[in-house]
Each structure stands twice: as C-alpha cells, then as structure tokens.
C-alpha cells in the first residue's frame, strides 16, 4: 500500500471516529439506565411518556402543514421566476437564503411583534392562530432547502416548451401547474419535504418562544431533568432524522433516474 493511500485511509478512519465515537458513546450511555448491565429501560421510559408521543405527533402534524404550505408557496413562485421573471432569479435566490443568515430568534421576535394580540392580525390570540404562525415560521426556516430542491427539479426539463405546449392545447395556469408541472417536480418536492420534516421535528427556538408543545422543546426539557432518557431520546431523534435522510436519498436516486429518462426523451435522435 502506497504512503498516499495509507494517508487517505488514515484521514477516513479519523473522520469516521470523529463523527461516530460521540454517537457510539451516547448510544452506550443510553443503555446504562439499569446499574451494572445494559438495558433498554431509558427507551422504555421515553416511549411510555405520554408527552413523547404527544409532542412527536404535534410536530409531525405541523411538519405536514408546513410542507403543504411550502409547496403552495414555492412551486408557483419558482415556476413563475423560471418562466417569466428570469432576471429576478438572483433576487429571489437571495431572499430564500436569508433564513440561513438571520438567526431564528430574530425571526420569531419579528413574528411576535407583528402578529401579537394587539396587532392588526392577532394570530397569537388563539391556539390555532399560533399553530399557523409556527407553521409559517417553519416554512421560512425550510425555504432555502425547499426552494433549491424545487428549482433544481424545474431545471431538469424544458419548462418553457411544456408550458407552451399545454397552453396551445387550451390549458390554463392552474391546470398547467397541477397536471404538467407538479407531477414532473414531484421527486424534487419530496426531497424538499423530507428536509422540512427533519427541520420541524428538531426545531426548538420558534416552538419554545411561542410556547407550543413541540418535540424540540420536549427534548430540551428532558435533557435538563433526566439522566439516561435524554440520550435515548437523542438516539430516537437521530433515528427519525436519519430515516428522513434515507428517504431523501431514495428520492434523489429516483430523481436521477427520472432525470436521465427526461434527458433521453429530449435528446434521442434515432428511430
């Protein structure tokens, strides 16, 4: 084995250890709830805690609402920007990355100032209103990922030609979006949706400051009050996130296959 190859292996092993050791340590610690032996007691405690399922279900429902709102906002926007307002693309891209630059605490304080009970739109005056506001906040947080995923999806086929073909066949904008565009960016939409799911499940700042029973604040609360359960909860949360990432990977693989099919259909030149 050459020295160069050896160095490559050494770097790889160091990187794996750097990332894996804390996780292994955490997992091993989560099994120590019973003195002197490994057990799944901490996991059992977490799973039988009604707050666990309650907060997880709340965050899951909220993530679905966030995904739906995100799709309704991002798909027509990205479609319109690519089709008619290409010169505004850099501006829109800049706006969509702002949530990565502005800290969530600044965004949530902005929301609370704008939509508190004495404002023109008192969303925080009711539970449903606050939940909606929280969802909209999550849409903002997931915007950079959702927009990029869908924008890339729209770039994978000849958007202009398909739109014009549908128009010449009599279709209006609604039908074009629903029947032609959305089915062709479905895989990209799924990618964006899984990232959104992962963000919403772990988010703490928005939910805590709006005082909603989400999974993120529950994890923090458990961490500050119990010994072994936080480690078990972190492993469960990792499992959920990794599950979402796995689905994302699957979607990406399908997307690549779909893309090659589309390219094939665009460029094939023989009978």
């Amino acid at each position: 084995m050459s020295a160069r190859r050896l160095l490559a292996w050494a770097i790889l092993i160091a990187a794996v250890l750097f990332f894996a050791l804390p996780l292994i340590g955490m997992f091993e610690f989560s099994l120590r709830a019973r003195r002197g032996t490994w057990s799944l007691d901490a996991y059992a405690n977490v799973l039988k805690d009604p707050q666990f399922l309650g907060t997880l279900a709340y965050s899951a429902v909220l993530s679905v609402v966030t995904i739906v709102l995100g799709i309704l906002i991002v798909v027509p926007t990205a479609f319109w920007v690519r089709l008619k307002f290409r010169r505004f693309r850099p501006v829109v891209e800049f706006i969509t990355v702002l949530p990565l630059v502005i800290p969530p605490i600044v965004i949530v304080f902005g929301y609370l100032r704008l939509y508190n009970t004495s404002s023109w739109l008192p969303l925080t005056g009711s539970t449903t209103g606050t939940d909606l506001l929280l969802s909209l906040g999550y849409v903002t947080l997931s915007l950079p990922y959702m927009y990029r995923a869908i924008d890339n999806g729209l770039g994978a086929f000849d958007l202009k030609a398909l739109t014009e073909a549908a128009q010449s066949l009599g279709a209006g904008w609604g039908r074009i979006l629903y029947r032609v565009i959305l089915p062709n960016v479905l895989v990209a939409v799924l990618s964006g949706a899984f990232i959104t799911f992962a963000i919403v499940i772990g988010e703490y700042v928005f939910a805590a400051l709006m005082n909603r029973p989400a999974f993120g604040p529950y994890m923090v609360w458990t961490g500050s009050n119990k010994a072994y359960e936080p480690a078990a909860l972190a492993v469960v949360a990792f499992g959920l996130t990794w599950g979402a990432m796995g689905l994302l990977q699957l979607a990406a693989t399908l997307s690549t296959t779909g893309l090659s099919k589309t390219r094939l259909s665009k460029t094939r030149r023989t009978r």
Partner: protein
Amino acid sequence: MGHLDLVHLEKAFGATRVVEDFTLSIAEGEFISLLGPSGCGKTTILRMVAGFESPSAGAIRLAGADISGLRPRERNIGMVFQSYALFPNLTVRQNIGFGLEVAGLPKPEIAPCVDEMLALIGLDALGGRYPFQLSGGQQQRVALARALAPRPRVLLLDEPLSALDAQIRVSLRTEMRAIQRELGITTLFVTHDQEEALSISDRVVVMNKGRAEQTDVPFAIYNRPATSFVANFVGALNTLEAVIENATGGHVRIADLTVPLGRQLQGQKGDSIRLAIRPESFRHGAGAGGDIVLPAVLEDVHFLGSVIRIRARVAGQLISVDSFNRPDQPPPPVGATTALRLSASDILVLEAS
C-alpha cells in the same frame, strides 16, 4: 382575404427589430414554409401566431377575426415543437387526449378520438408507453397527433424535424405532409432546411433580417430568385464576376470572353456585375446543347453515384458543375479541357450587393 392573414406584422425586442413589415395571406388548407437562416425572425412570427409573443405592430387575422389580443389557449391553434415537448408524466394516449380533456370532452368521447389519432400516425400499439420509451421520430409523431387531436384551426410546426437524423427526417416530413393533406389543415412550417421547405410546401417564404425576401411556389423560388439573398440561400450557386460591355444589347465580358445574356442590363458599359449560375445548369460532353460556350479546365472531379460534381476553372474563376451520372459516359479526367454549355436564360444577374 385568406384563412390566416398576417398584416404588416412587426416585432421589436428593445431596440432590436426582429420582424419588420411582414405581410402574408394563407389560404385554407395551404402548407406554407418560412425559410431562412437563424435569427431571421421566422420563429418569432410563428410564436406571434401562437400567442406566445405579442406583435409590436400589425394584426393577425384568423378567418377574418383579429386574434392578436387573444391568449394562446383561446386561439385553438395547434403547435409542434422542435423539442417535442411531450408531457413526460403522461402516456402517449394521455398526451394525445390532453387537449380534448382540457376542452371538456367526456372520457368516452376522448377514447375514439385518441384511437383515430394513433391510427393516423401509425402508433396504435404504443398508446400505453411513456415518452421516454419512444424514439425521437415516434415522439414527434405523438406530438403531431397531440396538436391535431383538438382539431385546431391552424397547425404551427416549429422546426419539428431538426432534432431527428437525416433518414427519419425525410420519411417523417413525407408523412407529415400526407397527414396535412388528408386533414386539409392550414399549416405554417418553420425551417432553415431549404430541401425540407422546397419539397413539402405549397408556397415558401424566404426570410432575411426580419423581412420576407420572396414568397412564391418552390419552383419559382429556386429558378427565379427575386433577390441576391434568395439566390444565394436557396440551392448552390456559382457566382462569376463580369463587366458590362453593352447594356442595351445585354452583352457582358467575363475575362476575355464575351457572353450574350439576351436581355437589357441595368448599368453602363464598364460597370461590374455578378452573374449567378446553378451547378446543374451547365452541360458538357457529347451532344450537350446551349447557346453559350465557356471553355473550362477541370480541376477536380468527384463521383457521387447519381451525380458527378466537377470543380472547373472558367476565365480564371472557380465554379462547380453538377451532372447526372450516365453509364455510357465515364467522368472526365482531372486536368482535361472541356466546353461548358448553357442557355442565356440559365444565367441570373444579381443586383449589386
């Protein structure tokens, strides 16, 4: 008044004028080709008729009614795109039925229409396939069927054959013309391929820099080009530099040869002019006829099967001569001297350019 009238159509993008004072009247059932180089405005005209671009000035009239202000979906004009533009998420049947579905036809009525279209394009067995499972030629046929299914008032073809290989292009253009004749649909076809335009059109519009240079039947476009651009763009052409010797009598001098053109010329004695001659207008060898004789030295001879292509030097200028292969007359040897014959009517006088 025709079925489709384009009246003094203009289109400008900022300061760039892409289409200038374009007028064309198309009769019902006519097949018209817009032929020209890239950037001559032919596709812009097609897109204005489809409704994807709005004219800066002028009117588009369909059956007498001005449709310039209508949205694309309100025009009932079918279009076939160069990139096929089939919906990748729909099967062949669903693609063809899309326009009918949009028009609100009930499903039981859509099915027989789709069957009819599939039979028309000869793809009856492939209705269940997705576009990516079809070849380029098959996809373009489906695109044609999809455009025709809602019975449009006009069919627009935007370079539909350019993405296909040569063999498929020839067979598909013949099929397209046959279908167009069968349905009697008014068709506007955009191409930069002169052979395509000449072979399938009722009339050809040769375009240059946003203007129509000549609108005529293919035979006239080729044999009686109205401008120097048309003469050069359509078909191969030899140009010979000449000097007017007698304008009234129609005599010109090519080097030390005096050539009678048999027509009055514009200009004065001593003016330079350019003569244009198609390669196939020359005749040579035993039994060749023609009132003008040009001595030539053969510099290169290419045997292409049905055609023999000769590069010859006439009065110091290099020209190309095409003649049909005849089994009893082998190609002349390189370096030989021969007499090229042609008729005065075969010589075009190009205006100063």
